[in-house]
């Protein structure tokens, strides 16, 4: 083997090792972050953490019951507003989206998908908080809905497009009207994929903080009143992490662990739904 050949072989081996090491590094980052979350947060998870509300600064103890309920309400409301619009838009793009309007909607969805969430936050502030005169969970939900609609629209479109054309043609040939074909045959077949998209979208907005800073604002008390300020886990983590007290930092880690678990649960169930779909297709 000539020296040149040897050098080429060595380079190839080295670079293979390098890209493997880089992949390992990326996975290591994930493991480190999740590991720290568990290590720092798990010991604080007890019954009172889940059932109590925050206590005044300086006091020990307290929990995030209000934040957990608040996250549920704000994200749930956002999903309620966003999912129908998102799925409807996705169906439009898949069914009628070949024209100029389809192109426009697709482009706008992609633009909005890349919009910084803080910009959506100040938009919701001018649109809802300012006219209403007070911060509200509803404004937060609208901001999150603005973020979730383009995501859902694009994944729904993709999933619907994956449905084989023969299914649609068979239904139409049997005399099914187009709308029923679209809803009962095509969308029904793509359902698992659409649900996956929705779950991924919900997982993404559940962790959002920036759009809630000036809309839901945060609240130290337990509330279910959607027209007033409300706490979420993400806002609570932000306040506690940037605050000066060790006790707050402890609670921030615990709250982060809970939020992460929630997001992972959604993401994993999305993956499950997808797996089932693919399993059926093969």
């Amino acid at each position, binding site marked *: 083997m000539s020296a040149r050949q040897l050098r080429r072989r060595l380079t*190839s081996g080295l*670079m*293979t090792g390098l*890209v*493997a*090491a*880089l*992949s390992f590094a*990326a*996975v290591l980052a*994930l493991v*480190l*972050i999740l590991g*720290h*979350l568990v290590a*720092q947060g798990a010991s604080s998870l007890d019954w009172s953490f889940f059932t109590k509300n925050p206590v005044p600064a300086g006091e020990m103890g307290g929990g995030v019951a209000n934040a957990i309920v608040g996250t549920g309400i704000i994200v749930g409301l956002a999903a309620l507003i966003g999912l129908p619009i998102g799925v*409807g*838009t996705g*169906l*439009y*793009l898949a069914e*009628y989206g070949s024209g100029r*309007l389809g192109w426009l909607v697709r482009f*706008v969805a*992609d*633009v909005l*998908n*890349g*919009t*910084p*969430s*803080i*910009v*959506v936050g*100040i*938009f919701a502030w*001018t*649109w809802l908080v300012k006219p209403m005169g007070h911060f509200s969970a509803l404004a937060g939900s609208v901001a999150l809905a603005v973020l979730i609609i383009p*995501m859902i629209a*694009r*994944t729904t479109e*993709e999933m619907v497009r994956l449905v084989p054309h023969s299914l649609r043609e068979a239904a139409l040939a049997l*005399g099914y*009207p*187009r*709308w*029923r074909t679209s809803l009962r045959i095509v969308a029904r077949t793509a359902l698992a994929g659409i649900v996956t998209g929705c779950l991924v979208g919900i997982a993404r907005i559940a*962790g*959002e903080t*920036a759009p809630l*800073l000036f809309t839901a604002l945060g609240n130290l008390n337990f509330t279910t009143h959607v027209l007033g300020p409300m706490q979420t886990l*993400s806002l609570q*983590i*932000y306040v506690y*992490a940037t605050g000066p007290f060790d006790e707050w930092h402890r609670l921030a880690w615990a709250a*982060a662990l809970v*939020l992460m678990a929630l*997001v992972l649960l959604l*993401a994993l169930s999305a*993956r499950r739904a997808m797996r089932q779909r693919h399993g059926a297709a093969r």
Partner: protein
Amino acid sequence: MTTLPIEPLPTPTRDNASTEGGIRGVLRGVNTGDRWYRAVLTALALVLPLLLLTLLAELAVSAAPAIARFGPRFLWSSTWDPVAQVFGAAPMIFGTLASSLLALAIAVPLALGVAIFLTEFAPKWIRQPIAFLVELLAAIPSVVYGLWGIFVLIPFLRSAVVPPLKAMLGWTPFLQGVFYGNSLLAGAIILAIMVVPYIAAVSREVLLAVPASQREAALGMGATRWEAVWTAVVPYGRAGLIGAVILGLGRALGETMAVTMVIGNRHDIGLSVLQPAYTMAAAIANEFSEATTSLYLSALFEVGLILFVITVVVNGLARLLIWRVARGTAVGSRAL
């Protein structure tokens, strides 16, 4: 002889909603259900464009007083004095670009490495799990990254990274000053970890879209595996890979919480990565609720408007490039 019982088809009327089986109705597309279906879907689809228009209009109207007062000077003036009512966004624009570009410098090799490893070298059974784990990085909420940055990354940088770095390269203008923790460097590293999954996922898709013949031709001519990847596969997907990087840039530019929590939030332009800096998103997050005068608020809206326009341009560019390679994929909404 029996006659076949042929019934006349119901005459299709324009508002006959019950022609479910009505062939003519279907053929002529006059089914009322169809028309309603299309109308409803179109109405839903119009929400997004209207939303974008309202968003732009709201931002522009709210930013108008600041635009009228400061003009283009806003972009390069570095005075940000709420008391004197003078605002210039140069430090934030600089900080946004600096932190994002620095983040890309770290993230791009990492993400490309992941994508190349997963598409070219990794054993089959390991590909899906690694791809999933890397994508999970995108599922971690920004505020959790910030928390980790404050309590894990910054102490680590302070004790293990910055001292040797300063000892080696302390004479360069990039490592001047005392390192307190919150800094451009910390922000860039956090951003890098955050954008890796996006760049890796899109790059992977791009590399997968490269025809196998490219690879095989190179191998057939005697190239080593790495040479095949580097001289045949990567150049083929270059436009898409650049698109992936720009997409990552778009993400980094608009990232708010994690950066706000570790970058130090100081209105300064400096070359040293060890010093605090500021980004546009962080400025809005920090100062919006304490903006006491309408001009102050308007200046922050102008910052938001600039940020929005920049990200729109950057994302538009990324999509064009990616579409050239992997046509029509909903880039970015795939990653978790």
